[in-house]
């Protein structure tokens, strides 16, 4: 009995103390991203500096390494009214977040927190802007490019490719670099790779003069099944099915990495990818065990090459409880100092031309200057304009699969998928 009374009294005391205001002086700012633990370490100096200049504030980083899980958590947190104060926004999520009005417009506060918006690459900033509204401070980006293995070119006595090369040049190079020494029909060395993921072949379509959606972004029929797009798709898939200069693409995203493995081990000459490839092989590059070059996408005659720019930025939910501090933290994470620190690890390009140029000069590998040149060919990907783009994007690898696996014609597969995308866009 005595024990019951004691427990009841203890419960009462606890519940009464919970009724009072939380009197702690520490303000906790929560930030989240899909960054890996290594990437989070790169942000730590910026966070430490922020905490030093804001006594009484604590920053809690709550990263979620898996990006789809990250979106689940962020969306649920915002919708339930307990959002993180600062979150990493992927370019593809800008339209839906903008439409829902869940993010704070950072433009009015940029100057106060030491961010000069004109210092960003204009087309990178534009991905996160709607009119005068800025929904995130861009922190890094990358165009999709072709990496080439210099050693394989040297061995074949081929000159390194130049930006502005054509589809024919590309094919001739890939043929020359595909080697089947033992004549068993399976090359020991491949010229290039075909990645079924749309992010890797968007540039090929643009550089072929086609597109996947009409300019207003409302239809896929008329664009995805247009002759220029179909020809680019035929060219891309023929690399694996007709020319046999690329291994058959993994028919699913889950084990992509096969091509990367071949590339790292010197069995593949040209690999489409982004800047994100570099941190994994930086050590080998610096020790001279691997020698890489970067070149833009080839293009059809008379067409200007173009490549998508994939960017992310720090933003603040409208319903963050500590707006001012959150905007200051977002600025600290996207500012030039934080970007310099991240650049040193080679993760991505700086969103500020001055910082990127400064780094390109110091880069002994010569890759950064090549990346910087290719930014001029960069375009905002469709994902930064169309709210339902994730659903659209999920349909697109089907075209590659149907052509490569089922042997259907690119025109038919593209037309079918275009109709399906139209239904999504009209919904």
């Amino acid at each position, binding site marked *: 009995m005595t024990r019951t009374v004691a427990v009841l009294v203890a419960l009462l005391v606890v519940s009464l103390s919970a009724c009072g205001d939380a009197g702690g002086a520490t303000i906790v700012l929560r930030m989240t991203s899909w960054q890996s633990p290594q990437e989070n370490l790169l942000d730590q100096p910026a966070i430490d500096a922020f905490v030093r200049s804001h006594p009484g504030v604590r920053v809690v980083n709550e990263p979620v390494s898996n990006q789809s899980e990250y*979106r689940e958590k962020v969306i649920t947190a915002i919708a339930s009214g307990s959002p993180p104060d600062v979150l990493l926004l992927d370019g593809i999520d800008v339209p839906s977040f903008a439409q829902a009005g869940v993010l704070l417009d950072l433009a009015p506060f940029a100057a106060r927190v030491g961010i000069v918006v004109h210092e960003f690459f204009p087309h990178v900033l534009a991905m996160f802007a709607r009119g005068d509204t800025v929904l995130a401070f861009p922190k890094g980006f990358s165009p999709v490019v072709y990496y080439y293995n210099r050693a394989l070119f040297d061995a074949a006595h081929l000159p390194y490719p130049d930006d502005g090369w054509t589809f024919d040049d590309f094919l001739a190079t890939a043929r020359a670099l595909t080697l089947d020494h033992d004549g068993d029909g399976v090359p020991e060395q491949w010229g290039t790779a075909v990645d079924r993921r749309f992010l890797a072949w968007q540039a090929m379509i643009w550089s072929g003069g086609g597109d996947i959606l009409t300019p207003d972004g409302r239809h896929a029929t008329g664009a995805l099944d247009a002759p220029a797009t179909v020809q680019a798709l035929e060219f891309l898939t023929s690399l694996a099915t007709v020319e046999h200069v690329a291994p058959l693409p993994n028919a699913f995203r889950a084990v992509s990495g096969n091509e990367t493995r071949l590339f790292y081990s010197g069995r593949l000459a040209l690999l489409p990818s982004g800047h994100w490839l570099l941190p994994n092989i930086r050590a080998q590059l610096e020790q001279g065990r691997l020698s890489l070059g970067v070149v833009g996408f080839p293009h059809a005659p008379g067409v200007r090459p173009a490549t998508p720019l994939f960017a992310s930025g720090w933003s603040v939910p409208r319903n963050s409880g500590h707006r001012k501090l959150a905007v200051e933290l977002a600025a600290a994470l996207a500012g030039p100092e934080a970007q310099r620190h991240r650049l040193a690890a080679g993760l991505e390009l700086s969103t500020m031309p001055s910082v990127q140029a400064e780094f390109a000069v110091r880069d002994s590998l010569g890759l950064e200057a090549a990346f910087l040149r290719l930014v001029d060919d960069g375009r905002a990907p469709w994902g930064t304009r169309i709210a339902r783009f994730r659903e659209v994007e999920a349909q697109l690898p089907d075209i590659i699969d149907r052509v490569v696996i089922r042997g259907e014609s690119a025109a038919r597969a593209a037309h079918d998928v275009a109709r399906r995308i139209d239904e999504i866009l009209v919904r």
Partner: protein
Amino acid sequence: MSRVIVRARFAAILACLLWAIASAAIVGVTGARVEYAQAAAEARTVVRLLAEAPERSPSPIRRLVAEGSLARVRVELARFLGHEVSGLESNDRVQVHRSWFKRVVSVPIKDRDAWDIMGAVALQAEPWGALYVPLLAILIVAALAAGLAFRGIDRLAAKPAASVYAAMIAPVAALSAVMAVISVTSRQRIDAAQVALPPLTALSRFDALALPLPSAVLSGIAMALVLLATSAALFVIGWAASAARRAADRRETLTAWAFLAPSALHLLLFTAGPLAFTLFISFHDWDLLRLDRPFVGLGNYLELVRDPLFWRALANTALYALYVPVSMALALGAALILNQPLRGMRTLRAVVFLPTVVSYVAIAVVWQWMFNVDYGLLNFLARSVHLPGVDWLGNPRTALIAVMIVSAWVQLGYQMVVYLAGLQGIPAHLLEAATLDGARRWARFRHITLPLLRPVTVFLFVTGIIWSFQVFTLVYVMTEGGPVHATDVLVYRIYQNAWEFRRMGYASAMSWVLFALLLGLTLLQWRALNRTVDDAA
């Protein structure tokens, strides 16, 4: 009065009291949130007036507690509430400050650029003001229901033939009636507040200053759940009080219910509640991020009928389920072997059981390597005996089979253990008698072991089919539904629609179709297989 009746009456009072407390809590929380939202809206009006004409004090509101600089508001709030308040200077949100009997809603005043918090406007909120009538009604009806339950209990105790349902319907009806009235009134209250408040656009909802109104649907669902729980309790009490029950019977059932009650309540709250909510969502075009979630009726279900990918996923799921009988046959074989009284059998059993306790993701990653076309173990073995390698996961013809192989491998251990338990439950004398009658090994297995294992087989088959229809992790990690949708299964479609495409309504509709399918299949299986079990018996 017998002891049974006294206890039943006590239980009935307790049930009605719990009902009253739960109902009052729902009504109280809903009412308080409406009141806070209204107070916040009024305070925002004051803030706006201050911004437009800062020189004259607006304060047209009688319940204004404080307005102006942070220091001033802090002092006045402390005086009003009797304790210090903190967090005014750094928190952009509307805050509710509480003391024992007083509630104050404060809204920050910001500088021209909405950057620094300069001051606050604090309004007194009176959440209990409008609640006297519903709370009183709840109390009166709880007392009335308890009285009606007493009458029912008396009747049941007196007449052995009396029906529990007929006897207890009166208190349940009384509770339902008042629940319906309260539900309608609180909906009206929320609707009225919605009309009075500035329109709930995306802007105002996510504006840090806004305090959203409560959801009428959620409070309706909560009330329905409380009513359901109380009604169930009253029927059980009536059942226990019935004269037709033997004391032992009664004690056993009540003890069982007492043990079941916590998990039953948990199921009701955390399974039945969300389940009901997904049904509601399935009739809407529901995007988690957006405020407008229009009612589309059967739209989502009709879209399902037209969606070729849904049918593909359904067919794939049905095909995938075929691994269940195969793995069961293998498990039975393994159980027969491992049932031998030999040395090392326990270790061997543990080894076979091991995959069941390993994480699905780890299993999927390892098998992904084993299936790899170039360096996978399976193709290495095939090539070493001069067989061509197979692109297991890259070929639409083999991808689903590959996933089925992994599933069978994972399930084998669990099914084997259940079969082992079944085998050890078969009376040895039956097998001995058959042996004496000259039955050979196969005949003993066919005519004794197999029929006696039927209940175990039914259990494994039914649960296996249910699990197989819920396959997700293996597909998510190994194939992501590919290649060319060859492994696209229902739960993966649901996940993709809900979380990647944010189409919660459509995904919920799919979940309900899956639920209906599973329910139908399970009922069919029970009926068909139970009959064979009965026949066997």
